[in-house]
């Protein structure tokens, strides 16, 4: 079970206080597949960043299974991100100097895994996303859809418990977007917990649970809650 309670995130902009999250509570069991929707600036990415351990809430609690993530220090969060979380970004965020294989290896390097093992695992992950034959290509030598699949392979490298994808198809055309979504569905059906942010109603409709955001608050929550 992953749970956030009364999560708030505020930014001080001069005299004004901006609430990116104004008290969000949400819980979901392992194996869930959530789609988060909402207008721009409603706090979707802010929640994702906190769930991913990239950011800390101003107040509220974050419980990841039995672990209280809100109390981790910088190194603790780094370890948490490395071991528990897989992150997929809208803009792929691949390192341009590295090959597909090396990009996928990166989380395993920070996990202290030996070269031989992580090469094998990276190759395995690339095969899983259908890029076995592109492992020595650099990001600039691949299409957007291929790059995003490399990024997905990277997010899977350390066998995370939670996959976070913030508008993963935002930079892709609709047909490649569909391929990527199919990949997420496949991963979810293999048991991985997936949360994705999307503006695409069709994409959201396919998720088992849909959470709607507005002004830093959850305004709708539909679908399976088991």
């Amino acid at each position, binding site marked *: 079970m992953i749970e956030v309670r009364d999560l708030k995130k505020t930014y001080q902009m001069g005299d004004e206080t901006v609430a990116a999250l104004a008290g969000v509570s949400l819980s979901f069991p392992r194996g869930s597949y959530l789609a988060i929707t909402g207008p721009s600036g409603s706090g979707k990415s802010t929640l994702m*960043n906190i769930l*991913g351990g*990239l*950011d800390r809430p101003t107040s509220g609690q974050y419980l990841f299974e039995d672990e209280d993530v809100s109390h981790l220090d*910088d*190194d603790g969060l*780094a*370890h948490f*991100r*490395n*071991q528990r979380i897989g*992150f997929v*970004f809208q803009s792929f*965020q691949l*390192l341009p*100097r590295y090959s597909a294989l090396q990009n996928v290896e*990166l*989380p395993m*390097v*920070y*996990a*202290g895994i030996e070269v031989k093992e992580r090469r094998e695992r990276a190759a395995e992950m690339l095969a899983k996303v259908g890029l076995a034959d592109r492992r020595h290509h650099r990001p600039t030598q691949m299409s957007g859809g291929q790059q995003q699949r490399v990024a997905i392979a*990277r997010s899977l490298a*350390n066998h995370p418990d939670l996959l976070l994808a913030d508008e993963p198809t935002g930079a892709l055309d609709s047909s490649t977007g569909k391929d990527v979504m199919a990949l997420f569905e496949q991963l979810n059906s293999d048991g991985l917990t997936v949360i994705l942010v999307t503006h695409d109603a069709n994409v959201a409709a396919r998720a088992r649970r849909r959470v709607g955001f507005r002004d830093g608050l959850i305004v709708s929550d539909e679908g399976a809650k088991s």
Partner: protein
Amino acid sequence: MKSKDLIRFAASAIAAHPMRSALTSLGVVIGVAAVVMMTSIGLGAQQRVMSAISGLGSNLIIVSPAASRSGFAAQAAGSDISITGADAEAIAKQVEGVAAVAPTVRGQAQLASEGTNWNSRIEGVTPDYLVARDLTIGQGRMFDEREARQGRTVAVIGTTVARELFGDADPVGKRIRVGSSPFQVVGVLTSKGQSGFGQDQDDIVLGPLPAVRSRVVGRRVKGDTVQTIYIKAASEDDLSRVQEDATTLLRERHRIREGEDDDFQAQNMASILQASQAATATFTILLAAVAAVSLVVGGVGIMNIMLVAVTERTREIGLRMAVGAKRSDILIQFALESVALSLAGGILGLLIGIGGALLIAQLGSWPMAIPSWAAPLSLGFSMAVGLVFGAYPSWQASRLDPIEALRRE
């Protein structure tokens, strides 16, 4: 995270911009090369002076007319030379612990023998000169006291003179002309080779003091005066006492009152050695300081490029943090990059410095002297430069906020 992976990350970042990396290291290359070359030149100069001084003879005190009164012009005129053969005799008789006293006059003279000419130094000496200057006879013999007193025109020649005038033939017994006077060769000195000052010590003719004074250098040295008195102390322990006693005796003989300056100067080898060592040490420190400044300039260059690299690679840093890099991993990665750049520059600079020192030694017929601490010191220094000047950029990289870093274009 394993340290070899950190090294790999740093190496690949450096290799990604070979030209930029090379230019960044250039400052350190030049700095280290300069330090190595400068210290090697300083040390070479010191060794050269030391071998020159010790080549003069051990436990030696050199008495010469006071510098103030025997400027070049005065000496050339022969008017003011203050020390005499009688002074030398008095020292030999009255000062204890003296192994040899050798009054000397010298000049330059044209030599001739059987149609061959050669220009050489000629010194008018007493037999004790050999003892004072640590010289030995290789062939024939030294002239004796009696021959010297009688003003006999006999000579002992150095091996260079022997070769130039007689080739392979035995010079002993042959006659040579020194200027316009005929001398008979009675002996040949054992070769001493080049002195530390670059002078051929075998290019010399020794004759009895009275004969040389009257026939060769007569116009410049009047009466009983000599240009130098060499005093050899019996042992190193006697050296400073002999110098003091000889100075006191000469002041008495020259009727110099309390408080007046000496009209001669007495120097012993130990003090000359010390003075020259102090001088070359200062010189070396000065050169090294100048070189160290260029090393700092190199460090600033590295810092500059590292700051640029952190800005350029902000997104990379954010991504690394997102996939699990700790702040310390980022810090170490960038610090390693900076140290590697600097160290590579240091290694190259060391090689260039050694090469340059070799070249200078060749060109200046200088002893090749790379101090043993040059390698560890310059490598240690360049590592320290990389660490110090890489610290701030690396720290900046490690303090980045991952979310902001990932958003950066």
